[in-house]
């Protein structure tokens, strides 16, 4: 009966681990449910390994243990395939984000260049009119910057 205690304790530890991860919100719910079910199924099987013997003899499998082993391998394979699928999907998503970041950064660079050009032009206009009559009522020079065909045009009010 030592084996039953060992497997049962492992099942208990597994269940506790899943519960703890879930409690700390480290596992997404869709995975948590899956692993909780796995834990709950293995717990009774761990303590009473012979409980599957009826099912296995009905299926023609010599012992319950080898049936559990077989099912476990199949289950783990399916989980692995699912995770590969999930990883591929995540890669697709990060790829789209990377593209988005690249486009936004390029746009930002263009904007900065345009802004620098505009500021330079504004500064030039300001200095060339310093002391002139182009000052507004409050003493500040008045300039209107408009855009025409993507080029900055500085006009007086």
């Amino acid at each position, binding site marked *: 009966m030592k084996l039953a205690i060992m497997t049962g304790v492992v099942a208990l530890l597994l269940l506790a681990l899943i519960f703890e991860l879930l409690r700390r919100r480290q596992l997404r719910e869709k995975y948590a449910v899956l692993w909780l079910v796995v834990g709950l199924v293995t717990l009774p099987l761990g303590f009473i390994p012979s409980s599957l013997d009826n099912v296995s003899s009905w299926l023609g499998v010599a012992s319950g243990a080898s049936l559990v082993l077989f099912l476990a391998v199949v289950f783990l394979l399916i989980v692995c395939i699912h995770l590969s699928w999930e990883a591929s999907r995540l890669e697709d998503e990060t*790829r789209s984000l*990377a*593209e988005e*970041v*690249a*486009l936004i*950064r*390029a746009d930002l*660079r263009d904007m900065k260049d345009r802004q620098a050009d505009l500021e330079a032009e504004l500064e030039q206009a300001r200095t060339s009119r310093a002391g002139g009559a182009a000052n507004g009522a409050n003493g500040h020079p008045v300039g209107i910057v408009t855009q025409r065909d993507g080029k900055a045009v500085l006009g007086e009010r």
Partner: protein
Amino acid sequence: MNADHRVLIIIPAWNEAASIADVIAEVRDELPAYDVLVVNDGSTDDTERMALDAGARVVSLPYNLGVGGAMRLGYRYADENDYDVAIQLDADGQHDPRYVPKLIDGLGEARLVLGARFAGEGDYQVRGPRRWAMSLLSGVLSRMAKTRLDDTTSGFRACDREIIKLFAQWYPVEYLGDTVETLVRVIRLGHPVGQVPVAMRPRAAGTPSKSPIKAAVYLGRAMITLLLAINRR
């Protein structure tokens, strides 16, 4: 294709600081009317700065995605900025920009035009498994497209608005997917494909691999890619 079409030249570049400036300078010299976009594919060297200084527009991916990843971004840029024609050209200087007008002429009858290295022009030669892989690919794809395609893995190609839209949302990142699989998809969607003979120049920087093991691996991957591409929906 008339003169007022907007043409974008897309150059995918990954750590090509040694050659990118010369390539851009040559393209701008030969084709002053066309815009040049360098897709910096997560380079760790000065590629981005060199390309900007040479006067190209640059979009930089935050990490390396491979040619396919870089190209989808290029086509996305072309799509979002309403270009009518997109040309793909390598950053290592082996594609001669003087052939670009010929590729664009080819867009009259075809939606996707390949610059083919084996179609008479130049003296491009490969041997062994790599050659078998290339002739297998060109045999199968020529039959599918019902036209002669001598160089299906060519990275020198031109396409029109319709294909830009397709590639902007779908462009495989896998190895060989960027050439072979895109070709299979375009042919299966019923778009006409054509080729124009081009001469390739030796690379301006870097050396092509000559190892027979790599060539054999290439053959295997080419066959897997082709099989998968043909069976994909």
